[in-house]
């Protein structure tokens, strides 16, 4: 239910901002803006900057709205769960008599433990009651505890707030609802509103606060940067091992019939095996320590790098090789001055993919078993229901993965400017 409302708000913001911003944009008058055919011309489609900014703001806005964040104005909040005092009346019929009494309900925050509200008994056979209930919980009301005629003596609730009821019926009251159980006891559930329980989704400020705390105190004996550093170290070590073995292997496969024939079946078989499927075997063989993780990442990077190097070699135009031979180059010189530089763009592309896969694999491997690392952090936090740390971890994992990709792209631009220019 809440999900549908979130989706509706999201779509609403999307459509509204699109209508507003596509009307005002288009102040640039470059060549592309003058194209009349844009539908179907992919090169004329450029990301709308306003859309990008609004998209991110919207995510945070929704997060704040549905967690009751103090970072956004109150009127934007989704309806909050009910807190405070409310009451309802019940009417009891027993031994031919009828009487009405009031139940005072205190709905309190889950973290607090207030005293029961004090009420006077009132008159008649039914006496007034008071209960307290925490947010997002519900409670049976033992109405006959202080009454003159107990349930066991035949007392029966016949109406709530004047509405006739029988077991199973439900009456909405201010701040919640009352359901009559099968045995005739009223059950009070407070209004949950539309906000997410902090257990499921903590508010942004809670995550920020927890970030500060984890930054200062660390998590499970290791600092936050330490956890991320360990994950990064594993990725880089595993990737480097994979590249050191995979690139020469790929070259050999691209240059020799025997190597191609020998390794093709292995590489083609291992390529579609997701590295995650190797985790159990690697744990059996190498345990859950660093060796196991680096072996796993090595295997994740190896095939990708081998295939990248192989296709880098096969991508060399034969006329370049012929030209180099006609200019007097030896085999070694062909390798050094033609094949390697020509395959570098492919290898960089492979390296980007491999780093991405390794990063994903390391987090998964740490989820399974680790003492340090980003994956371990979110796994342990989830066991203790520290959702804020889980969210913090996911954000950091995403940011680092993105950062790795950006770095690789930057390196590619600087180191192989001839990419795609052959």
């Amino acid at each position, binding site marked *: 239910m809440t999900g549908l409302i979130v989706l509706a708000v999201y779509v609403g913001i999307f459509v509204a901002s699109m209508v507003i911003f596509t009307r005002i944009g288009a102040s640039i008058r470059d060549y592309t803006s003058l194209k009349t055919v844009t539908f179907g011309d992919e090169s004329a489609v450029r990301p709308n900057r306003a859309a990008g900014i609004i998209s991110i703001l919207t995510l945070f806005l929704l997060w704040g709205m549905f967690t009751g964040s103090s970072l956004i104005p109150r009127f934007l909040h989704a309806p909050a769960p009910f807190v405070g005092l409310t009451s309802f009346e019940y009417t009891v019929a027993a031994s031919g008599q009828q009487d009405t009494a009031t139940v005072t309900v205190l709905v309190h925050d889950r973290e607090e433990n207030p005293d029961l509200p004090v009420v006077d008994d009132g008159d008649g056979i039914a006496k007034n009651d008071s209960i307290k209930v925490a947010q997002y919980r519900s409670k049976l009301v033992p109405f006959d505890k202080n009454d003159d005629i107990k349930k066991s003596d035949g007392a029966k609730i016949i109406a709530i707030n004047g509405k006739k009821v029988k077991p199973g019926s439900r009456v909405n009251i201010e701040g919640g609802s009352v359901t009559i159980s099968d045995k005739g006891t009223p059950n009070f559930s407070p209004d949950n509103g539309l906000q997410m329980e902090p257990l499921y989704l903590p508010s942004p400020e809670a995550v920020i606060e927890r970030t500060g705390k984890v930054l200062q105190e660390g998590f499970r004996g290791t600092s936050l940067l330490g956890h991320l550093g360990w994950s990064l170290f594993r990725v880089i070590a595993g990737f480097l091992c994979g590249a050191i073995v995979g690139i020469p292997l790929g070259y050999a496969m691209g240059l020799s019939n025997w190597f191609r024939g020998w390794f093709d079946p292995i590489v083609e078989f291992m390529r579609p095996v997701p590295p995650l499927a190797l985790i159990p075997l690697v744990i059996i063989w190498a345990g859950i320590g660093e060796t196991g993780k680096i072996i796993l990442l090595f295997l994740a990077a190896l095939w990708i790098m081998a295939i990248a190097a192989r296709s880098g070699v096969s991508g060399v135009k034969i006329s370049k090789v*012929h*030209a180099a031979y*006609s200019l007097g180059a030896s085999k070694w010189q062909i390798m050094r001055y033609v094949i390697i530089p020509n395959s570098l763009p492919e290898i960089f592309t492979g390296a980007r993919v491999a780093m991405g896969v390794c990063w994903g694999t390391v987090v998964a491997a740490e989820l399974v078993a680790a003492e340090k690392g980003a994956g371990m952090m979110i796994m342990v936090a989830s066991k203790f229901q520290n959702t804020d740390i889980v969210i913090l971890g996911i954000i950091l994992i995403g940011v680092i993965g993105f950062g790795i990709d950006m770095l690789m792209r930057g390196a590619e631009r600087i180191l192989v400017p001839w990419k795609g220019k052959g």
Partner: protein
Amino acid sequence: MSGLSIEKLSMRFDLPGGGSVQALKDVSLDLKEGELLSVLGPSGCGKTTLLNIVAGFLAPTEGVMTLNGHTIKGPDAERGMVFQQGALFEWMSVRENVGFGPSMKGMPKNDKAEIVNHLLDVVGLQDFKEKAVYELSGGMQQRVALARCLANDPDVILMDEPLGALDALTREKMQSLVLKLWKETGKTIILITHSVEEALLLGERLIVMAPRPGRIHKEYRLPFAELGVNSDLREVKTHPDFGPKREEILNMIWDMEEEIMGTAEADA
């Protein structure tokens, strides 16, 4: 004995699906030092195969080739090659591309720089020395390819449709450049082309090849290359013999193409 000599060259290879192709049959050719030969023929006549064999990229099934008295076995710096396009090394600057051959030989830096500078002057690319090759236009790239080939000082230059991908104007300028370089350096040049006009302009000798099997159909000796060295190529084209020769060769190739079409239809 100086010059290139090809004797009874044949090339036959098996097809993967069975059967075999006779790409060349009994091709014999003698080329004196400094001769400029252009090769014409319909597609599939084996002219590129012939060039690849002379370059040493393919081994003939029969026949002998000698250059200055020694047998040709594989690719070598004595036989330079200029390709249609895309054979430059885009990870090197123009200067490095031209200096590639001397670098491979381990020539001292200063000598190399001198050669490269001289050749860049010859092809008019001195100002583009440090540019990446992919920043140059198609015509400029082919001038780099020519300079790179000449930097190695080969005995024979093999050209596989070097101007095929250029626009008409650039092509004309490049044809003059090829003639100029031929005269200045006195190299033996074999040029393969699709264009009858180009073959006439850039051939002291011209051979027309016929397909199935690839063989030399007819040979000409032409005055146009010699004329073109000193005058405008457009003027050469107005020479009284030029038009009739062009018609004659065009008709010859046209007939061959029709014959191929005919047999193809008969096969079908």
